[in-house]
């Protein structure tokens, strides 16, 4: 997305002072009910239409996944998983993949460009592409493998949760287009409430482990799933069971920053004060053992004049 003037920025990449945040807004969420998704890809079409993006036409790779992966032009992709857990019982698990809009976004934590990634008070994590420098740190930071760097302009792209639509009170384009009502949008609280009713229904139908996917390892997400097999999210095209920001990224973009900065500053500080205390080590300086130059030094045993 481009930068819209906003008063409700909760977090801004590579920025230590507060951003404009006087406007309050409730946290929103998109709830994707995998159990009612038919894999029609209307959401994918709506996404490319609203964002006015046209991906290259690819080749069939033997599955219904089209395109086969997220790309800078395809911000959401239906992932089709054929799963046989019990003999003679094929399950077709179809997950709408895309940015999860983490409450604690790894991309934003890793991003070194001020304001290239922002999180609004409503929880949406947005790439402000004009500030992007193309370093790819967001890719390393993301626990869901979502951001994609364009070969055309070296900028990172991903789902914006239609932040432009949401800002004016509309639902994301994919939500509007879904013909079965599998994609819901509202406050995060309302989405949890609705999801509970879905879990009751699914459990009645024999899915005893049905659950809402709102992983606490990233502080929860603003895109949530209703999963029939909530105990095995990996079945859904390797949706991580306990996603979290990698400890290596945590170190690199966490404690290493102040520690290294302090260590560099202290080294320069001690070097300067070493000079103040000890002074230069000067081979050319006349010393008392040289010739008597008439100068009486502090450590000279001779009495001062």
């Amino acid at each position, binding site marked *: 997305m481009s930068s819209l003037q906003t008063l409700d920025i909760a977090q801004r990449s590579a*920025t230590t002072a507060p951003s404009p945040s006087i406007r309050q807004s409730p946290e929103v969420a998109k709830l994707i009910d995998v159990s009612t998704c038919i894999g029609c890809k209307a959401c994918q079409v709506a996404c490319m239409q609203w964002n006015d993006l046209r991906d290259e036409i690819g080749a069939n790779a033997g599955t219904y996944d089209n395109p086969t992966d997220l790309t800078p032009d395809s911000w959401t992709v239906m992932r089709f998983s054929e799963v046989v857990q019990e003999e003679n019982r094929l399950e077709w698990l179809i997950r709408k993949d895309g940015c999860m809009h983490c409450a604690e976004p790894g991309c934003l934590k890793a991003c070194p*460009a001020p304001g290239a990634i922002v999180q609004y008070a409503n929880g949406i994590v947005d790439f402000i592409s004009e500030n992007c*420098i193309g370093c*790819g740190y967001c890719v390393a930071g993301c626990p869901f*493998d979502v951001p994609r760097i364009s*070969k055309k302009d070296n900028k990172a792209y991903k789902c914006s949760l239609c932040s432009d639509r949401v800002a004016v009170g509309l639902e994301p384009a994919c939500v509007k287009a879904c013909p079965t009502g599998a994609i819901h949008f509202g406050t995060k609280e309302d989405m949890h409430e609705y999801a509970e009713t879905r879990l009751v229904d699914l459990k009645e139908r024999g899915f005893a482990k049905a659950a809402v996917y709102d992983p606490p390892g990233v502080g929860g997400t603003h895109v949530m799933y209703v999963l029939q097999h909530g105990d095995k999210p990996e079945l859904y095209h390797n949706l991580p069971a306990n996603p979290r920001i990698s400890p290596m*990224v945590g170190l*690199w973009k966490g404690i290493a920053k102040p520690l290294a900065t302090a260590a560099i500053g202290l080294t320069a500080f001690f070097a300067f004060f*070493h000079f103040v205390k000890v002074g230069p080590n000067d081979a*050319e300086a006349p010393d008392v053992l040289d010739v008597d130059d008439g100068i009486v030094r502090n450590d000279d045993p001779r009495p001062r004049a």
Partner: protein
Amino acid sequence: MKIIRRYSDSERVNHWLVAICFVLAALSGLAFFHPAFAFLVHLFGGGPWARILHPFIGVVMFLAFLLMMLRYWHANTMDAGDKQWLRQWRDVVANREDRLPEVGRYNAGQKAMFWLMVICMIVLVITGIMFWRPWFAGFLPISLVRLASLLHAIAATVLIIGVIVHVYAGIWVKGSIGAMLRGTVTERWARKHHAAWFREINK
């Protein structure tokens, strides 16, 4: 005042090429490391240009450093006198040079700095290539890219601290910056700081 040649023209060009690349790589690298340094991207024409230039500057620095490494490898092997020199670091920092064992072309501190820089430069160039976009990062598993990013930041921090010490030592020990700028030192400088080297070249 007798003048002694310590560094040839090509040695000095080599050194300052590494030094200039280091300053540019450190300034652009710090800009990506901590928001406090983010303003430094403007020295390079903005964020995208800093991102584009940083790795190329780094590769030039490494290649130039590689030459220095080959030049000075043999002059930097540690011996028993060096260990004693290091044990007496208090005398070193207090300017009590007369109490230290005689020093050859390089003292133990300079030798330690040499090896520290060798290690840091090798780690930096390998890890840097590993997360260089758009060229190489895409071919590696993401866990390796993350590890490389972390190691790159650590090696860079150690190198920056090392260079601050290196530059300060040059300011502290008067005549050293001149040695690398003009290539010459005075006889007194050589006798005071590198007595064994002085005897060696006067054989």
